């Protein structure tokens, strides 16, 4: 793997930026070059949120992902907005609990995962983002399982360490999905 550009998209509050942060930290543990760029401003307060993550063996140029290798869409407006930007042969991961519309592209790999339902049924309401991250990890193998866990540990502040186990569980559910 030389370059991997991921665009995480969804509603503010779904943990879009946090998902990107865990991925970024996992890539750091993996010894890669990386960048993490959030959307900022009023859209963070309940509107649409997006987060660009670039992982590479080389220096990162533009950190703004315009044509993602992987698009994660956790709501319908995001899928509609970004679907056509994905590179041919890329991957679109959709939370099918929330997005009921089909992906129309035929030249990309489409992964529909019932992330919100899986999270909720396992007592992990609000952790659909980590279920998706688990699946993203399985699809791309962007780092080792050990570094993914280290990335998670680095992303959770010490005073919220009690959240670690639930996030781990959600990631495992995504990997098994």
């Amino acid at each position, binding site marked *: 793997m030389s370059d991997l550009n991921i665009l995480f998209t969804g509603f503010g509050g779904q943990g879009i930026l946090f998902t990107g942060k865990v991925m970024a930290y996992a890539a*750091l543990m993996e010894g890669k*070059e*990386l*960048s*993490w*760029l959030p959307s900022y401003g009023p859209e963070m307060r309940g509107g649409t949120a997006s987060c660009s993550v670039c992982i590479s063996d080389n220096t990162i*140029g533009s950190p703004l992902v*315009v044509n993602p290798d992987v698009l994660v869409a956790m709501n319908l407006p995001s899928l509609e907005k970004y679907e056509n930007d994905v590179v041919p042969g890329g991957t679109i991961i959709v939370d099918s609990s929330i997005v009921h519309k089909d992906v129309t592209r035929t030249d990309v790999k489409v992964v529909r995962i019932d992330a919100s339902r899986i999270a909720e049924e396992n007592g992990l309401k609000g952790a659909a983002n980590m279920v998706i991250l688990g699946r993203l990890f399985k699809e791309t193998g962007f780092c080792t399982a050990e570094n993914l866990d280290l990335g998670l540990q680095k992303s959770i502040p010490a005073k919220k360490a009690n959240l670690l186990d639930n996030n781990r569980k959600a990631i495992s559910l995504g990997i098994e999905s």
Partner: protein
Amino acid sequence: MGEKVLMKGNEAIAEAAIAAGCRHFFGYPITPQTEVAAYMSKRMPKIDGVYLQAESEVASINMVLGAGAAGVRVMTSTSSPGVSLMAEGISYLAGSDVPCLIVNVQRGGPGLGGIQPSQADYHQATKSTAHGDFHILVFAPSTVQETVDMISTAFDLGDKYRMPAMVLSDGMLGQMMEPVVLPEPREPDNDSKDWAACGHGGKRKHNVVNSLYINPQDLEDLVVARYKRYEEIKENHQMAEEYLTDDAEIIIVAYGSSSRVSRSAIDAARKQGIKVGMIRPITLWPFPEKFIEKHIDHTKVFLSVEMSMGQMVDDVRLVVNGKVPVEFYGRTGGIIPTPKEVLEQIVKLNGGVQ
């Protein structure tokens, strides 16, 4: 060497300033810069520092003038409209030979403009920050690590030449996270400035820090002496990074965020066999003329890529002086150009698709 951590550009600015011995921060919140102030408000009280949110940018910069005149390492940070409000104070700082650090995390303008990234304050930073004959040092980082390293250089050179220094960032560099190694912390040095008005217990003649000179000859002498220092700075402190310039027929000149976009475009163009490179100014004042001059002979065309309607391109044209064409490409208002757009410009300059 310390551990690599992920930090937002804005937070890294604050931590780097503290590591450089800065213990005085005065500011006022404004998007997309607010994380600098927020970080300082948490850290400064823990290290015997001063964090003060003033009632306005005008008040902030005058507090910077006061603290700087007393000889301490001091900074403020803001975003574009805030710099306009600070303009008068920056001129007073320059006219009083008081060093300080001003961070501008640029957003779209003019007016209240927008809150998305921009580079439309280039002219303001390098040419017309405020009234009077003066310059400030202007540094333009392109990564979070470079931002960290530059903060320390900006403070040190500001102190050395007794002048304000500015780090010209933008909303993208401020909001993004990248791996960074923080520098070894330095202790604050509050005693080495023998010109500072900081109290002396009657042991020496008192110092005066002032920018008012009623006698024109006194003022001219002072300004001329200052411009001699500026010449010394131009001679010794031009900084730029060159990327694939050795055989380049097309050279992009771009700084900060637009240099990152350009780098991606250059990599794509090189894959098509186009001989294109980049000069990335690291100091905007002094403008890195020397780096451009040495490439004029083998370059067919320069292309200034900016997030503005074309400001730095004027400086490139001054250096190139009509010897070869200097073209411009930019987006403004908070729009970040895409690598594809810049690639299209490169292909066009190369004579279309071969």
